[in-house]
């Protein structure tokens, strides 16, 4: 079967709470079997968007289609969609089996079929033997598995997860990233999960929608989002990035020359098609690890910045430096991998240093 790329389709969905635009004109297509992340800072509308998909919140405008069916006005209990709540919402008066079997009652199964489905779900989340546990006798990780099993046992077309790992402690959280991803690959169900943790999104998702202020700013694979952020805002949210402001001077040989004031003239590849017009204000974005720190001026080449080392810190697997340039407010952040044991004390704070980078390491961002 061909996986359709608009298995879940949102068109121009908006939701207002009074004057707050919690979700503002969101359109998204999510493919069948995809592990999709909604990533954004607190209050950007991720939960609201997920609740619109689940049918818990009615949108003010726009439409929601799943597998071709228009579900915009369908109530939550009739949608082929299930949700794992942030606090898991395990029914405290039911044991593990009863929790998992809760949603099977309307499916008209025989007792044996129901029991088999519950056993399968228990096995899927590796909770065999826990069926008769009271739901108040579970650890956080076990509660999460029960919540997952309770949703998966319904064989939903889409599983919604609201910050599924945020209630777990750090070690378990990192373990569960891998497990949740493996589980999704195994069951093949479309997962849409909400997180404000970029590392979580990068490590788990096939594609990520970055949201802010109720809008989707960019939808892309983790690699593309990191390497080719579309805007300064997205770039700042995913990892860290140095922003060098300037204006376009001209374009030649597929490279754009940017006059970056005190930083001199810098060469950068245009992103997307077409170079920006001369005089246009632009920003060059460079990730700290794309910069190379030198203790003397390089023999030749463009894209060299001279500055003063203001801070050097040894962080185990990498070194981190700040370099300030006269006339530029924000110090430039540089990271270098400690691939061979070097004495970082060789870098004396206050000394003159030079920074350089490969042209493809920088991004041209339109302001």
């Amino acid at each position, binding site marked *: 079967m061909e996986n359709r790329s608009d298995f879940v389709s949102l068109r121009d969905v908006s939701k207002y709470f009074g004057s707050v635009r919690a979700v503002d004109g969101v359109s998204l297509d999510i493919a069948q079997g995809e592990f999709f992340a909604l990533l954004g800072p607190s209050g950007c509308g991720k939960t609201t968007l997920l609740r619109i998909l*689940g*049918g*818990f919140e009615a949108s003010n405008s726009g439409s929601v289609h799943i597998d071709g069916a228009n579900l915009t006005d369908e*109530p*939550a*209990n*009739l949608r082929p*969609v*299930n*949700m794992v*709540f*942030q*606090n898991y*919402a395990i*029914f*405290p*008066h*039911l*044991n593990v*089996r*009863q929790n998992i*079997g*809760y*949603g*099977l*009652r*309307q*499916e008209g199964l025989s*007792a044996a079929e*129901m029991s088999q489905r519950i056993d399968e779900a228990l096995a899927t989340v590796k909770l065999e033997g826990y069926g008769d546990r*009271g739901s*108040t006798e579970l650890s956080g990780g076990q509660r999460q598995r029960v919540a997952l099993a*309770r*949703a998966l046992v*319904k064989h939903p077309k889409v599983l919604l997860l609201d910050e599924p790992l945020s209630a777990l402690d750090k070690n378990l959280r990192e373990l569960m990233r891998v497990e949740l991803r493996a589980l999704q690959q195994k069951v093949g169900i479309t997962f849409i999960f909400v997180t404000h943790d970029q590392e979580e999104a990068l490590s788990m998702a096939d594609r990520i929608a970055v949201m802010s202020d109720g809008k989707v700013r960019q939808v892309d694979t983790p690699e593309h989002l990191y390497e080719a952020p579309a805007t300064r805002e997205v770039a700042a949210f995913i990892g860290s990035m140095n922003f060098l402001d300037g204006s376009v001077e001209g374009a030649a040989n597929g490279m754009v020359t940017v006059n970056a004031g005190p930083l001199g003239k810098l060469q950068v590849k245009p992103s997307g098609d077409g170079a920006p017009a001369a005089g246009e204000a632009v920003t060059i974005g460079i990730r700290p690890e794309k910069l190379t720190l030198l203790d003397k001026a390089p023999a030749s080449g463009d894209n060299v910045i001279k500055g003063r080392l203001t801070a050097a810190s040894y962080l185990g697997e990498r070194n981190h430096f700040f370099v300030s340039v006269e006339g530029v407010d924000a110090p430039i952040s540089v990271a270098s991998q400690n691939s061979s044991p070097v004495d970082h004390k060789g870098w004396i704070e206050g000394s003159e240093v030079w920074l350089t980078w490969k042209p493809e390491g920088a991004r041209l961002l339109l302001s």
Partner: protein
Amino acid sequence: MKTRAKSGIGIRGLTIYGILYLVFLYVPVLFLPLFSFNDSIHISFPLKGFTVKWYEHMFANAELLDAFVNSLKVAGSVSVISTVLGVMAARAFTRYRFRGQRPALGLLALPLVVPGIILGIALLIMSKWAGFQLSLITIAAAHVLIATPFATFVMISRLEGFDPNLEEASRDLGESGWTTFWRVTFPLALPGIVASLLLTFIESFDEFILAFFLSGDEATMPLYIWSQLRFPRNLPVVLALGACILAASIILVAFAEWVRRQGVSPTPKSENQ
């Protein structure tokens, strides 16, 4: 050593105070059962001898039994009506945010602090004005007025500790609003509901002032007792009756409190069969 002795005295002092307090509080009440078994019409020491005849008289008294049945009817309907209203009000107060929520809660609590005699007069005037026949129904209506705030506060305290996501999870798993109420909300609220039924029952059963103003020709238990106080001969029977009510109230309140504190009840075995 010295400080220890000193604090020992302090503790002893507090213990004596505590005992005196309890004596003051409960000994008068304990006179009821004591004299109800005393073989004399006079309520005075020394005690004359043990008897259960006042209890026999009590059970033989048709008027008293009528009053008892009347009180059961009134208190039974009051507890059900006020608890249903309380559950609905508490759900509204805990699940939704609406304009005027806090003033509404305050107004709801008002009957608890308005003196009974004022409420009684006001309701009597209103009943006359509206042309209601005074009867057990007007008594019950007045009792619903004062029992509903009770029921609402008991239910609010139960529902506040209750995760609203549970109801959404139930909807998510395919249950409608109504079945969600029966499969999730009701079982989790049950200890509160039972406590509310018992407390409002007692509240109505014991209530005198409103019943006094609003009764027609049928008496409730407190009215009957009051009417008997004019006849010293009947006093021991009243004491026997009082002793019974006291015992029943203590048991009901203790049970209500115990139920209310029950967290999650054990899982029903019939689920998922």
